């Protein structure tokens, strides 16, 4: 295969030559993806435009008319935004803490972030059901302090979902923000201090503005993931906490209305694509800087 530096080489002979170096290496994955990724997604799109009678827009028409869909969409947006907000705040604080540590301690601190990151969301959701129930750990501990069990409703409602989602999302914020903070020129903080700035001023006028691209990237990342949440709202949420993914599940397995399920999936996919494009443009801009 050619050296990367020769990438833009012009053809020597008069004939145009389509570059194909290394294509054989990606061919197996392309075939697999075509079969098990592209085709299935194609099915989803196709089914969204099809009912038992044939091609139709009934699926989308239903979506537009449906109260249920409207509610679920609004719920999804709300939950996604709220969970993202909480996660970004908590994650940023954690990243700040890690950034100020010595490299050794930072590795340990990161290990404790990586561990929940790699733990199955099912396990985490299950643990939260034990933690957040009326007789769960949180309420029991509070009961121990207060003398009576306050029986805070922390599960099977919005709060439970938000707790579950933030718990999963925080590591996704920590990594990009920490990377940004570590990449910042250390001399900037020192120069600002010598010029008389207090630690808080340094944070406000130097560190925070410079970390804005990372915050934006983390936010987009969280939103993308939030829209796809399935397990957490199912296990920790109540009847008013149904998100788009759960709705799709409902229509596929219980109502057996594949048309509507597909239509909802297409909406979800489109939203994700838009967010992903925004994210790639943002990170692309960052690289140019």
């Amino acid at each position, binding site marked *: 295969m050619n050296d990367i530096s020769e990438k833009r080489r012009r053809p020597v002979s008069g004939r145009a030559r389509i570059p194909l170096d290394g294509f054989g290496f990606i061919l197996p994955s392309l075939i697999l993806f075509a079969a098990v990724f592209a085709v299935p997604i194609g099915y989803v799109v196709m089914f969204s435009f099809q009912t038992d009678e044939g091609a139709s827009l009934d699926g989308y028409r239903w979506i537009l008319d449906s109260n249920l869909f409207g509610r679920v969409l609004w719920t999804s947006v709300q939950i996604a935004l709220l969970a993202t907000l909480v996660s970004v705040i908590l994650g940023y604080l954690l990243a700040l803490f890690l950034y100020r540590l010595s490299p050794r301690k930072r590795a340990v601190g990161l290990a404790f972030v990586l561990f929940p990151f790699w733990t199955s969301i099912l396990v985490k959701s299950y643990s939260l059901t034990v933690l957040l129930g009326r007789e769960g750990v949180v309420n029991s501990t509070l009961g121990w302090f207060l003398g009576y069990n306050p029986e805070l409703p922390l599960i099977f409602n919005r709060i439970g979902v938000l707790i579950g989602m933030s718990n999963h999302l925080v590591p996704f914020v920590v990594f990009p923000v920490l990377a940004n903070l570590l990449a910042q*020129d250390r*001399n*900037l903080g*020192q*120069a*600002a*201090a*010598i*010029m*008389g*700035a*207090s630690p808080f*001023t340094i944070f406000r*006028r*130097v560190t925070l*503005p*410079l970390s804005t691209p990372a915050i934006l990237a983390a936010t987009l990342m969280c939103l993308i993931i939030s829209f796809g949440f399935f397990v957490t709202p199912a296990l920790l949420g109540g009847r008013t906490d149904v998100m788009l993914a759960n709705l799709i599940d409902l229509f596929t397995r219980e109502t057996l209305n594949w048309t509507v399920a597909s239509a909802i999936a297409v909406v979800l996919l489109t939203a994700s694509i838009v967010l992903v494009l925004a994210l790639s443009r943002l990170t692309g801009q960052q690289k140019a*800087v």
Partner: protein
Amino acid sequence: MTETLASPPRWAMDHTHPSGRDAPAQPIRNTMAETAPILRMEGLTKLYGAVTALDNVSLDVARGEFVTLLGPSGSGKTTLLNIVSGAIFPTSGALWLDGRDITWVEARRRGIGMVFQNFALMPHLSIFENIAFPLRVRKVANAEVKERVMEALELIRLPGVAARKPKQLSGGQQQRVAIARALVYRPPVILMDEPLGALDRKLRHQMQFEIKRIHDDLGLSMIYVTHDQEEALTMSDRVCLMGAGRIQDIGAPQRIYSSPATEFSADFFGGTNIFRATVSRGPDGTTLHHEVFGPVLGPGAGPQSGEVGWMVRPEQLRFLPPGEGADNELAGVVRDITLSGQLTHYAVAVSDGLEFTVACLTNHATRGPFEGDQVRIGWSRQATAILKPTEQ
């Protein structure tokens, strides 16, 4: 002891070496009576576990003085600068700024200015806001901020760049902005940490001139750190040569170069023609008794006895034509000739494997000695420099 005056300008103490010698002229002021130093460092020591980064360093910087901390990496110069700036605190010792003890004061309360090698400009702020940063921290009114920033821009001769961002400027321009930023709040002392290290050679020469001009115009006190001896000699009022965490030699550029006080110093500025001998002192001056060369006449002032190092600068040696004599003469054979631009270096083998390097202005008519010629080299006794051995 009195020292004769040569060229005027303003500055203060010359820490003459205890062994004393006829140093080329430097003006002296009675510092104790007239002006107190702007910065006093006493006994500064910094230990990192078993490593001694700084060993009992004391130094005074006079008002308006340009002092350079010169030395190889690991010499302690950056550590010393960091202690002055407040980035680190000493293990022992003290530091006074304008009479105020700032040894344990945090960096932001010292009111010092600093310029970094990589500029450290805020990439997200405009040039105007970059320079205005210390003023905004001090809550200066907008109108005054504008006035002082524009003034600073005029000083660095970049009035038009206020609205741009740092990355739109060249390296040299960014460094000038960094200097303007350090000046705008009129600190009593400005520190510079190898500010020209990131610039290419030609730009560096221009910038040396710029920095010197700003220094002279404003009468600032500056501490400049560099490993580049040429830079140090060109710009400074006083050069403080550091090595192994100590001050090895300190003095005006001319003195420190032609009459280095220690072997370290001699070696740093091009260590050739360095030898050892026992010294004795007579009514005429010192004599160095070298085991191979015999008696070598030294300068008037010097130690009475003992083992010392001594040297002669290559450019102070000359080839003696027949019939001509000098205080010190030695016969030898030209072993090697190296042309390096303006100077030509001759390696002259004297005896017993010992060599002298003689530097002459390149002789285009090539009248000068050739390889293999028998020659006599000579130098005046004033050109012999007695060196204190490097403390270990």
